[in-house]
Structure formats: C-alpha cells, structure tokens
C-alpha cells in the first residue's frame, strides 16, 4: 500500500517476471525425489505395504541387494492401499518397477495384463542373472523353480496358468489359545481341540459369565474378524469352483459351517456378545482380546507372536491346526487358510531386467527365510533350513509350515470378483451373528449375488480377450 492509502498496482511485466522467478525457483530448489542412490546406478522403485518391523526386515533384504552389486539400486516406498495405488499408476502408465500385492489381488492384475508374466522375464533374463548370482557367491544355478516351493505356495503364484508374482512371505492361520486359561479350567493345554465338537466343549468350559455379562469368551468367531468367509472350509466346504467359475457359498458344508457360527450367539446371546466385543482393543495393542484375557482362543496367524513379544512377552500361548468337522479330520492333511504377499513386476515398468534381478534375489532361500523370521511367518519353501526352524520366533512354526504345505491349505478364492464376493460376507456376517436370518438363507443370497459378480467378470473377459484369455486351472478355492 502507498503512503496515501491506495494500493500500488503491479505492472504486467512485473507480474510475469514474478511468475517466471517463482517457476525457476521451483525448478531449481523445489522438491526432489527422495533417495540417496549412488551415481551411475540404475534406480528401481519398489512399492510395498510394510512399515515398522516388517518394513525394516524388507529394507535389510534391499540393503543386502544394493551392497551385493554396483549396477542397480532399489528404492523402497511403503504405502497403504497398495493394490489401488498400483492400479492407478499402471493405468496412468507410470508404474513402479516392483509392487508388493497380495495373492488374492493377482486375478485382477493377471487377467487385465497389468503385471508381466514372470516366465517371460525368466526366459529373457533368468539364465544371465543366475550366472551373475553364482559369480557373486550366491547359490549355484539358482532359478525360480517349482521344486523349491510347497505345492500350495507355487499354486498361488499363478492365476489361470500365468505366473503373476512370487510369494515373498506367506501365512497359514491356526487355532491360538491361552494355555493358562486351559489350565485354569482343568483342560490339558497340550491337547488343543481337533474337531469342532471338541472346540465347542473347550469353549464352553473356558467361557466365564458374570451378572448376565460375558467376562471371557472361550472362542469367538468374530475376533479378530478378518476372515468372515471361511467357516465353511472347516466343514469341508469351499466358496468357488474355478473350473466352472461357480460360486458355491450355499453348499451344505458351508451352511453347516455358518449354522455352527450362529450357535454361539444363540448360546451366549447375540447382543451380549456384540457389546462384549466392542470393548476389545486393536490387534496391535496390549488390549488385544487374547492378550487381555477377554477371549481364551481365536483363529489367528503366526505373526501374532510379534504382538505377543511386544506387549506381553511372557504370555503362554499354544497353537494348533484349526479344528474341523469330525468326519474330515486328518492330522496329516490339516486344513487352514493360506495367504501370501506377492511380489510382482507391473507391465510397462521402466526397468524389467533390473526388477527381475531383485525379484530373484528376494527368492534366494536365505532372503525368504530372513524375511519370514522377521515377519514371524512360515516359509513357502519346500525344504526349510535347520537354521530357520531354530531361529524362528514362533515355537509352533513346524505346525504352520505343515499347514502351508498341506494339500488342503486353501487360499482366498482366486477370482477377480473376490473383493465383491468377500464384501457380501463382511456385510452379512452381522445379520447371521444377530440371528436376524437363518444361515442357509443368507448364504443362498450371497451365492446368488456372487454368481452375478463372477458372471460379469467372465463376460467382460470373454468380450475383451475372447479365446485369448488364459486357461483356468480348475481348482476349488
């Protein structure tokens, strides 16, 4: 403002000059891409979902790779909702070199040709990289081969015959229980339930009611509540027939599974259980239901021990394959959910050769095992080392490895329609839990809607690719 109170006007030349100066300043001193890659190296970007302890473990693998040679530099970016961000970056033709998805993301990415089939890259670069690894002192003649992995782990690297990603960590879910609670009610902590009827019996004895309220639940299906869709599998059911691309949610086995789920709110009171559960703390906290003594047993993954070590180191936990219906019990072929993180190379990534070199590096047994130990997960490898078994933080790692290798290990259904299919279970589990409808009726509805989603996927695929679409592998998942 001038001394006489009027605003001073800026000339056009002045305004343009100021804009140009601002632009030059931004170009010269503006934000730079993060990273401290040494000069002369090819920088490859790796997007992953892990932060904290899990992210640090992956960083150690990256550091080992960056130290092992002087041509490539891997830069790590941790981000949430990675599947959606990967999708947008690939659609925008600016993908990273590597992206860590989940195995259940593969159908969408493989069917839309958004990831590079790894067999193509192996044919092009595998031999050369393998020789380079040998020269650097790693395993001789190392390749990504079927015989290195358990059969279920190898299977979930593929979708419709295409190898879309490798398993860099995997998990098998099991029955986790509080051994001291078992002792407290006179149950043998070394004899966890094997069948559903045994589980019901244990749960009843472990449950404590006081003044019309639940003080401790013996077993709670909805804690932690991440897998609302899988209860039928423990009765021999499955949700999807990949060969016929059919939803099978309303099969008699699944109906039996969800009738069993409903038997708990029926026995203990639906609203009472909902109120009880609302007082639980988060998974990664000391108030977590199992650690806090609110529940005596849950379905959970091996990574639970990292939370135990952090918040309640002396907690006396036990783990066993999740109980199943009596007629399908087979200790040699346990049933359990198999989940994995899948490392993929997006189609159109800037440095496919370098990305594949790093991907192969992550699959060296020592790296897979180091990552699995840090994440407290089992190994996807067919032959775990003695060192892995000795150093693993989960004392039940042999059981988890057995689950991963079991022919009856099941992944999330491998269909592109799965996110919508799963959301139906997440929405309807409350309906079943509140006993608002019979399980059979709800499952029939879910199956009907899921089939519609699947039909859309199939129709879209055939319309887009016709006979060029990859073949189905014909498995039930």
């Amino acid at each position, binding site marked *: 403002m001038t001394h006489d109170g009027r605003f001073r006007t800026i000339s056009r030349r002045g*305004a343009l000059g100021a804009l140009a100066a601002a632009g030059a300043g931004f170009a010269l001193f503006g934000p730079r891409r993060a990273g401290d890659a040494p000069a002369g190296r090819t920088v490859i970007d790796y997007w992953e979902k892990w932060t904290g302890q899990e992210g640090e473990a992956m960083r150690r693998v990256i550091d080992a790779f960056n130290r092992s040679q002087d041509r490539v530099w891997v830069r790590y970016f941790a981000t949430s909702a990675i599947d959606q961000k990967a*999708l947008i970056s690939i659609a925008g033709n600016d993908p990273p070199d590597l992206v860590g998805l989940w195995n259940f993301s593969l159908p969408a990415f493989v069917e839309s040709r958004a990831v590079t089939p790894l067999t193509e890259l192996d044919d092009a670069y595998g031999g050369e990289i393998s020789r380079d690894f040998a020269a650097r002192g790693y395993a001789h003649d190392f390749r990504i081969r079927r015989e290195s992995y358990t059969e279920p782990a190898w299977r979930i690297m593929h979708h419709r015959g295409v190898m879309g990603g490798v398993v860099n960590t995997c998990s098998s879910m099991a029955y986790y229980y509080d051994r001291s609670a078992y002792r407290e009610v006179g149950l043998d902590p070394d004899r966890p339930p094997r069948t559903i009827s045994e589980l019901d019996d244990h749960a009843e004895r472990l449950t404590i009611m006081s003044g019309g309220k639940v003080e401790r639940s013996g077993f709670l299906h909805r804690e932690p509540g991440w897998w609302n869709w899988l209860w039928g599998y423990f009765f021999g059911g499955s949700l999807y027939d990949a060969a016929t691309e059919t939803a099978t949610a309303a099969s008699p086995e699944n109906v039996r599974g969800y009738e069993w789920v409903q038997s708990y709110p029926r026995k203990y009171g639906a609203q009472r259980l909902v109120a009880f559960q609302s007082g639980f703390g988060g998974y990664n906290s000391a108030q977590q239901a199992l650690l806090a003594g609110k529940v005596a047993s849950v379905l959970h993954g091996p990574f639970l021990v990292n939370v135990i070590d952090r918040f309640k180191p002396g907690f006396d936990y036990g783990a066993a394959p999740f109980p199943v219906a009596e007629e399908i019990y087979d200790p040699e072929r346990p049933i359990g959910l198999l989940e994995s993180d899948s490392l993929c190379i997006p189609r159109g990534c800037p440095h496919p050769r370098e990305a594949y070199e790093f991907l192969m590096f992550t699959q060296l047994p020592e790296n897979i095992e180091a990552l699995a130990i840090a994440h407290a997960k089992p190994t996807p490898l067919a032959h775990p080392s003695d060192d892995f078994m000795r150093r693993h933080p989960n004392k039940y790692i042999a059981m988890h490895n057995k689950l991963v290798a079991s022919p009856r290990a099941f992944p999330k259904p491998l269909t592109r329609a799965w996110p919508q299919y799963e959301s139906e279970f997440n929405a309807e589990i409350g309906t079943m839990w509140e006993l608002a409808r019979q399980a059979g009726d709800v499952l029939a509805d879910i199956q009907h809607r899921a089939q519609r989603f699947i039909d859309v996927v199939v129709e879209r695929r055939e319309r887009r690719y016709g006979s060029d679409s990859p073949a189905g592998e014909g498995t039930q998942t």
Partner: protein
Amino acid sequence: MSASKGSVKRPRRLPEWAVGLAFVSPWIVGFLAFLALPVGLSLYYSMTQYTMLEPPIWTGLDNYLEMFHDRVFWKVIWNTTIYALIAIPIGTVLSVVIAVLLNSRVRFLGFFRAAVFVPTIVPLVAAAMVWMWLFNGELGLINGALDSVLRPINAVLGTDFAGPNWLGSAAWVMPALILMSFWSIGQAVVIYVAALKDVPTVLYEAAELDGVGTVGRFWHVTAPMISPVILFNVIVGIINTWQIFAVPYIMLGTTGGPNRAGYFYSMYLYDKAFPYGEMGYACSMAWVQLMIILTLTGLTFVVSKKFVYYRAA
C-alpha cells in the same frame, strides 16, 4: 512533442482481452484439465465397461440399467435418503434453536458460541475416532450414562434393560450416525446467528405493540426473516448428506457395519471404482448422484417459494 512522439516506435500492445485471458489462463487450464475434461470423460466412461487397467468397452446404458437390479445400490439409496430425511430437519431445527439462544443476552455468551463452533474445526477423522469410543457398547460414555439411569429402573422393575450396541447392531447404526451429525451444526449456527442479527428490531417492536408473544414473534417475524438462510443451509445439507463418506467409512469400515446399515451412496461409489475395479459403473453412479442432488435442490427451490420470504432490497 507531437513530432518526437511520432518518431518513437511504441511496443505493440496486445489487445485487452488477450491480456485478460493470459492472466486467467492458469485457472482456465486447471478448469479444463482437472474439471471439464474429467467430467466429460466420466460421462463417457459411465456408458462403458471400464476397469482402468484395460481399455473401456462401449456398453451404452447397461450400467444405468444394471442399477435397477443392484440390491446394494437400492440399499445405499435407502440409507442415504433416511439419513437425509432425519438428519437435515432435526439438524435445522436444532441449529435455529441454538442460534436463537446464542442471540439472546446471557452470561458467558462468548464461551457458549465458541463451544458450539469449536467442534466444526475438529478434523473429521479425529471426531469419528472419539465418537467411536463414545458409542462403544461396553465402555462408551453414552452407555455409561444410560446405565446409570437404567440401573435403578432395572432394580425396581426387575428388568434387564441395557444401552444399545450403537455401532455393532444393524438397528442402531443409523441413529448413531444421525446423532453424530449434530456434532458439526456449529457452522450452520454461526450463519443463523448472523442472520438473526440482521432482523430489523422495528419488526419485533411492532409485533410487541400488537401484543404478539415470544413464540408468535419467532414464528411471524424471526422465521420469515431468516427463511432465505434456512433455505441455503437446507440445500447445503442436502448436498453434504448425499456425499457423506468419511465418518461412516472410519467408524464402520468398508461395508458400513452390520447388514450395511451405515453404507452410503458415496461409499458404494468409491468401492465400485477402486476396490471392485468397476470404474464405468462408478461413473454412472456419480451421474445418477448428480441428478439426484440437482432434482432435490430444484424441488427444494420450488417448495421454498411458498415458505421463503425475501425482503425487498
């Protein structure tokens, strides 16, 4: 002077309109690239099967027709409508009443005005987290307060009444969300207070001389005089409720709680676009959403002609 002027070559000047355009060009480019083009493209994509990872396939009106058979679509329409029908009228009445109270001469007026307005500047995520704990069925303050009332009743009647599972029960999710919507009425209250200050005092004096009581003065003077502001807030409320997303998403998760009781239109639109990879369908939903908001706004304007009083300038 004129001779020297003729000999100096003046720089060529751009016409005024060109200079004006050059100065607004950053906005024009931004508008075209980030608004007009995406809006146009979304209309096109709404008539295609589009997953973002693959080129779109033209399907005409299929996406729009599919909505008629989509049970979840009707569920979110129902939820959003119920929420709007209850939250907007109650919120409007509540904020007008609070504004009238804050417009009176009471002690600590500044404190009360701040207390009403401060919640609106709390970030939505933080507010949602706090309300999640308030609504907690087992440990929440709301049920704690209810329990202290219900306990003696239960003792006398021998009943077993308890506070509801606000966010865990399909029947209570919607009341919980509506209750929480009143948390942020401070913004509307501030606008109503400003409008109340603008009501000429001579009108109240005239009404008083005519023997009109307090309620009558409010009904026959205050309400008509602030009716344009009420209309404005109702329209903003309609637009906001049809776009509600963050609070139920945080409090209830991706499927809107049990039986999708808190699943709203924008949440389903987002799910269709990204997690489910059906961008074409999501675009068609966005256009239907726009049509719904435009229709409701238009209807509100038509109805308002009967109720809204505009003062002559």
